[in-house]
């Protein structure tokens, strides 16, 4: 005999009676030991079963066992009156093992018609956190928090505690907790049950600049205070809220502070109790919102988009000028403009201005002239008229042409042409007539 290497358990498989789908032989006793990895259980589903039917499955049968425990003894088929057919329901093993034993006797009057069975099995993950471990009545798997994983589970602890080396129990340890999610829940160790005495916990809520942390304490707040002539003071027990560049705030008593808007992206909470007294502790939900920037205002001859009721960190706004106007910033024309609300609550660029465009000095016309009919400084919508130096030149087409300063900064005629007109010479028409100089006949 050779020692075979232990093969890795399968995650699924198939089991069939001997010679299936041909009729099974008599005098048979065959056993299958199925297993899947630890942390999984086996789900067995029959696709077909046709075993000689008998009351209590006396002659031929298939037995399904989990260890010594019989999960089922089956025979017959879907239509037989006798026997015990599993139907469509799968059989779920409590653990990662399952045994099938198929037994047949030596007399089988309908042998030709009984083909046995066919089934498949698959591994199903066990949710150890919600299911009681088989045969274990020692209590919850984890001291505080149980996380199911495929084939296993993990224990973890609330803030203020750390996981013991047994990977199941939690011991008090509440320094150095950093919370950088946008929202979350914090509470003192053991809350709402009184924790051990003389604890010193620190909670740091730290988000990137541009976000503001708000603390919302639950009503159930109890930190021992000491009454003095000046009123209650947080002498031995306290929760200190520290925001950068501001004086720390010590909280105690039985009145919940409610909502505290810190106006900071970083908040440090230090919870301290001494050897005496009684503090049940506190809990809070923290949330964050983005820093707000001032409303950008309006722009003459332009518009700001999008129009929002309020603008927050990382919001962008864009400025577009009305047709015929251009974006100007610091005396320079810019092609486009956008600005972002910064983490400090200021826009990273001030708003530009919209100045009216101009088409430049209209091109001069050979043997003609250009006159302004309306507008000034060659500005948008100014109208000029090109005319020829009459009576010596006449416009091609015989009409003077008006050009308007268009939004694309070109002078265009009413016919949408931006080519200058042509002045053609006038021939044979002296300005002074010979006949007018002499009246003699």
């Amino acid at each position: 005999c050779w020692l075979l290497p232990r093969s890795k358990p399968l995650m699924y498989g198939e089991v069939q009676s001997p010679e299936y789908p041909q009729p099974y032989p008599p005098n048979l006793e065959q056993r299958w030991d199925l297993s899947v990895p630890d942390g999984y259980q086996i789900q067995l589903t029959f696709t077909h079963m046709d075993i000689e039917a008998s009351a209590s499955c006396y002659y031929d049968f298939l037995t399904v066992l989990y260890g010594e425990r019989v999960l089922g003894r089956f025979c017959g088929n879907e239509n037989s009156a006798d026997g015990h057919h599993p139907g469509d329901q799968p059989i779920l093993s409590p653990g990662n093992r399952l045994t099938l034993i198929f037994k047949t006797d030596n007399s089988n009057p309908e042998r030709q018609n009984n083909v046995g069975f066919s089934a498949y099995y698959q591994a199903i993950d066990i949710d150890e956190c919600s299911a009681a471990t088989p045969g274990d009545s020692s209590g919850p798997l984890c001291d505080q928090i149980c996380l199911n994983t495929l084939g296993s589970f993990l224990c973890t602890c609330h803030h203020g505690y750390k996981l013991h080396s047994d990977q199941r129990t939690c011991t008090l340890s509440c320094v150095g907790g950093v919370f950088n999610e946008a929202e979350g829940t914090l509470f003192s160790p053991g809350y709402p049950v009184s924790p051990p005495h003389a604890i010193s916990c620190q909670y740091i809520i730290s988000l990137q600049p541009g976000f503001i942390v708000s603390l919302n304490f639950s009503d159930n707040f109890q930190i021992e205070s000491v009454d003095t002539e000046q009123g209650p003071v947080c002498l031995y027990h306290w929760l200190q809220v520290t925001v950068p560049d501001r004086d720390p705030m010590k909280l105690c008593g039985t009145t919940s502070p409610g909502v505290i808007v810190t106006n900071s992206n970083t908040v440090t909470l230090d919870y301290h109790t001494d050897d005496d007294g009684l503090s049940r502790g506190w809990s809070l939900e923290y949330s964050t919102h983005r820093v707000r920037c001032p409303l950008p205002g309006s722009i003459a001859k332009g518009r700001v988009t999008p129009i929002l009721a309020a603008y927050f960190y990382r919001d962008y706004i864009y400025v577009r000028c009305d047709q015929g106007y251009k974006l100007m910033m610091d005396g320079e024309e810019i092609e486009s403009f956008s600005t972002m609300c910064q983490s400090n609550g200021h826009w990273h660029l001030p708003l530009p201005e919209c100045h009216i465009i101009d088409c430049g000095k209209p091109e001069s016309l050979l043997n003609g002239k250009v006159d302004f009919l309306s507008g000034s400084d060659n500005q948008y919508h100014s109208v000029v008229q090109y005319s020829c130096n009459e009576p010596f030149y006449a416009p091609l087409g015989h009409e003077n042409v008006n050009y308007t300063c268009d939004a694309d900064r070109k002078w265009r005629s009413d016919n949408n042409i931006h080519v200058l007109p042509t002045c053609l010479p006038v021939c044979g028409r002296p300005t002074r007539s010979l006949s007018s100089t002499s009246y003699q006949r």
Partner: protein
Amino acid sequence: IIGGSSAPADTIPWQVLVNVNGRGGGMVIADRWIMTAAHVLTRYGDPPPTSSVQIHMGRTDIQTLPTPLSVASIHIHPGYNNSDGLNYNNDIALIKLQEVVTFRASIMPLCLPPQDAAYHTGTMGMVSGFGITDEGNKRILTNMLKYVHIPVVDQQVCSQTFAKMKQQGNNLIPHLTDNMFCAGVPEGKKDSCQGDSGSAYAIEENSQFWAAGIVSWGVECGKKGKYGVYTKVANYVDWVQKTMQEN
């Protein structure tokens, strides 16, 4: 001009004085083009160098002429061949100026003949020039631009006139062709003359003058029964336009 009058300023703004070792005339037809008679430019044989051609325009008094305009090129009609001095057929030429002229009251082009140009006998035309004029019974070379109105003469009448001259023994008379027409009055005393060659014979139609003829040749000036002969411009419109376009 015989029997004419002095032209006031700006009344014949197409008049050009073309001087090539002698006085001749021309007419402005475009802002860089002068039309004249071929013989004005080839009076002494081959076309002269452009530098020796002086062009003046815009003045009616030769004594106040400004700096002449520079000539870019000369284009003699290819059919002009007057080696014997008696063949004025195709007596037409173009002068291209180096610089563009801006038109004004004193300088304006004369229109080329309209497509349906007709030379009806009796139609009055106006011929002008700085050529020989009359003062009493004397012929003098004037410095003032002169003009005279004379009618188009029937081509057959004109032809007979020159035939009669030949019968009288004067064989040195040029041939009258269909590229020429005559203008003048039978009683004489109104005519173009030497120095007017190349100038325009202009017909006014609908208050607009067009170039009907170019002063070309004649036998004596202003004599009774003799007419002046003019190059018939209408026959050359295609050549004129082609030459200007190609150059």
